[in-house]
């Protein structure tokens, strides 16, 4: 356990160095152009270190919050203008910050024996924050529950089982009460980074959990032959169906479908698309987004260097957009998608265009896996 102690020490010294209120780049927010009022959140690696950032649709920086290590994704409380960035798994920190840079950031440290997997959500009233976490000595997935009310100071007040191992992304269902969790099925232990410890016995699932009671309302597994297909990322389409993106951890020659849709009370459906497109995705989906119309779902594959767009109603393949190391994807305000890459690129993909049009290239910057619209 010595290593976690070191992590904590390092984290605390980072806190002291950063100071409580100095995290936001002063004045950066004022630079907003006002042309496009949509803002996006993304973690990145930059010459200044790891940061959680707010950018506009053209990739211009509005706010940068320093982080002690690599970040992953965000929980967003839009009504109160705040967000939480989670450390990438195995994550030992999260930072709550004001997306307008108007309040000092607050840090969250998971309790002993837990680490973050990188995703979380707020309850609609902003009083609770749920984070996917690893109870790593027991080898089970949990949702950490944090009191996100004003008086709560983001204290951890409990946890729910996710009904599986390695929960990755969690989303809030349209009813405002049910959480949908992607139990990736991959057992990890922080002593060994992200190494899969249970390749032969993986059991990924999609679980619906009542956020008030923790009750496991509904759970779905794919066919047993797909037990190495890790369900990892989620997004809701306009009809309220859950779309999920998978990563296949089995042999490369197996190329199972990587994208699926689930409607409550029914069996999950998988969509393969054309064989050549499936092959291009290289058994890997890194992120999902649904466009503003709610009818088009984008799935990115940084491994395959492409973003694939699907028709939400039929599950039909629509288009493939090439972007080297592209992973972050979010709905563009005027239709289509905003994409980010590990090579510093921010690009737009207009519907039917079939290509990524570069908006901004920040040298020395690597945009991390997820891009979220505020």
């Amino acid at each position: 356990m010595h290593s976690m102690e070191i992590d904590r020490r390092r984290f605390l010294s980072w806190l002291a160095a950063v100071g409580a209120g100095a995290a936001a780049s002063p004045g950066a927010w004022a630079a907003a152009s006002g042309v496009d009022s949509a803002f996006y959140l993304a973690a990145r690696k930059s010459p200044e270190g790891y940061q959680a950032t707010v950018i506009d649709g053209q990739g211009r920086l509005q706010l940068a919050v320093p982080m002690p290590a690599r970040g992953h994704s965000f929980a967003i409380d839009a009504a109160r203008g705040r967000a939480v960035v989670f450390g990438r798994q195995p994550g030992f920190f999260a930072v709550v910050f004001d997306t307008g840079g108007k309040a000092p950031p607050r840090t969250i440290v998971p309790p002993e024996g837990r680490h973050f997997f990188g995703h979380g959500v707020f309850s609609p009233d902003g009083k609770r924050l749920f984070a996917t976490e690893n109870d790593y000595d027991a080898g089970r997935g949990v949702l950490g529950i944090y009191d996100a009310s004003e008086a709560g100071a983001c204290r951890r007040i409990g946890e729910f089982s996710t009904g599986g191992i390695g929960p990755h992304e969690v989303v809030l269902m349209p009813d405002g009460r049910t959480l949908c969790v992607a139990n990736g099925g991959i057992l990890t232990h922080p002593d060994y980074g992200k190494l899969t410890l249970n390749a032969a016995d993986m059991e990924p699932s999609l679980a619906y959990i009542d956020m008030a009671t923790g009750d496991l309302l509904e759970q779905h597994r794919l066919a047993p032959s797909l037990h190495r297909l890790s369900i990892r990322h989620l997004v809701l389409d306009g009809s309220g169906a859950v779309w999920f993106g998978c990563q296949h951890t089995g042999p490369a020659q197996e190329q199972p479908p990587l994208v699926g849709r689930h409607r409550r009370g029914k069996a999950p459906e998988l969509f393969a698309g054309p064989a050549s497109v499936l092959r291009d995705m290289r058994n890997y989906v890194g992120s999902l987004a649904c466009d503003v119309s709610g009818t088009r779902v984008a799935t990115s594959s940084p491994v395959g260097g492409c973003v694939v767009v699907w028709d939400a109603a039929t599950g039909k393949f629509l288009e493939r957009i090439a972007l080297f190391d592209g992973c972050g994807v979010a709905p563009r305000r005027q239709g289509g998608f905003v994409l980010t890459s590990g090579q510093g690129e921010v690009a737009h993909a207009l519907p039917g265009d079939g290509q990524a049009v570069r908006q901004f290239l920040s040298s020395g910057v690597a945009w991390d896996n997820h891009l979220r619209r505020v």
Partner: protein
Amino acid sequence: MAMRARIAGRKLPRAGMMGCKAMQERYIRPVRAATALTAALAISLGAAQAGALPADLGPALARGYIAPAMVEFQQAAVSMREGMAAFCTGASLHAGQTDAAPAMPEGSGKSGHEGPQASASHAREAPPDALELDRRFGRLVQAWSGIAFLRFGPLVDSNRFERIFFWPDPRGVMLRQIQGQLAAAGKAQAGAEGAGAPGSILDPQALATHSVALQGLPALEYMLYRDTGLLRAGAQEAQGFAAACGFSRAIAGNLASIGSELASLWGGSGDYAARFSKPADDNPIYRSNQEVAGEAVKALSTGLQFTRDIELLPMLGSGPAKASEKKAPFWRSGKSALALAASARGLAAFHDAAGWRYAADEAWIGSSIDDELTRAAAAFESVAQGLAQAAAAAPVQAGALQAWLETEEGYRQLVLASLLLKNAKGIVDENMAPAFGARIGFNALDGD
């Protein structure tokens, strides 16, 4: 690009120039603070390349390294199985008794990773003793280390990797399952000799259907080297000897049969060897020589990462006082250093076998990778030899590496090796991959 790469190459810190303390501070970090090991590192292809890919890259790797290394693993497993059988029944081994090994593939020779303990005799007259079985187990561990980094295709398919090597196992799954199974098998067998009942873990075919934690090297090592293990004095007279023997023979048999599948898939007429050797548009796995190169670079990079981050760094902890040999693979049998040396040798031989043709101004890349790996292997070998000398003619025991780690010089040697592995991985990722058009993206490198 070449100029930048060269400068980057020169900037790489050389272990020899740094003091031990500085190295520890800079390089010894627990894995959770270091770059996390990715489950599936990926290489994106298509970037401009300066080096030329050898036209016969796939065949060169398959015939020059992979197939012979798989055959060596298979033969080492057969030798273990035979040794176990004779040891358990008290029979003698004869030369003619050795199971026929598959024909060595064309062009195969010494795969370059066989250590001093690799020459187990097949012609012994006397029943093998504990020392002989220890030698055979050492050969098997080394042979495994020579193929463990080939974690694509056959080794991933059918959970072969996990069946051979269910490790690391931080929650002690293997121990728990073995103890439960042994208790049950002991009762069922009630002292009877020979193969177990159908479905039992004492039957090699049935064992293959049991949990992966029961099937491979860590389980066999536990059965041989635990405090009441088969290689301990007096084991033959101890209660439960028959069940322990039956289970260990089943594991060795299971390993031999997995080895035979691997050797066959990678052999001269093997399915996977053919795919790897003949990239084409209609090849379901490798469409181009570039993709074969990507697979090879990925194997090197992830193999280096596994060896350093998973097998080596956890044992080093944050300093000699925190070092723990029990975090290393094969600590029970005292073969951790031997395994690490064989990994480094194997990676170097795999890199050599490809015949990478670097552009003139990038030739340093290949020689640096070779150099770092050779030096890392030498550092591990020096530890292994030190431990062997201290043990005199007896097998190295568990605990010997621990004592070694607690000395400043011993610890320093392993720190040096970790630095060399880190450098080698840095060169593979940052210089070798781009040189052959296998640029590794930030998100693709370490996805989530």
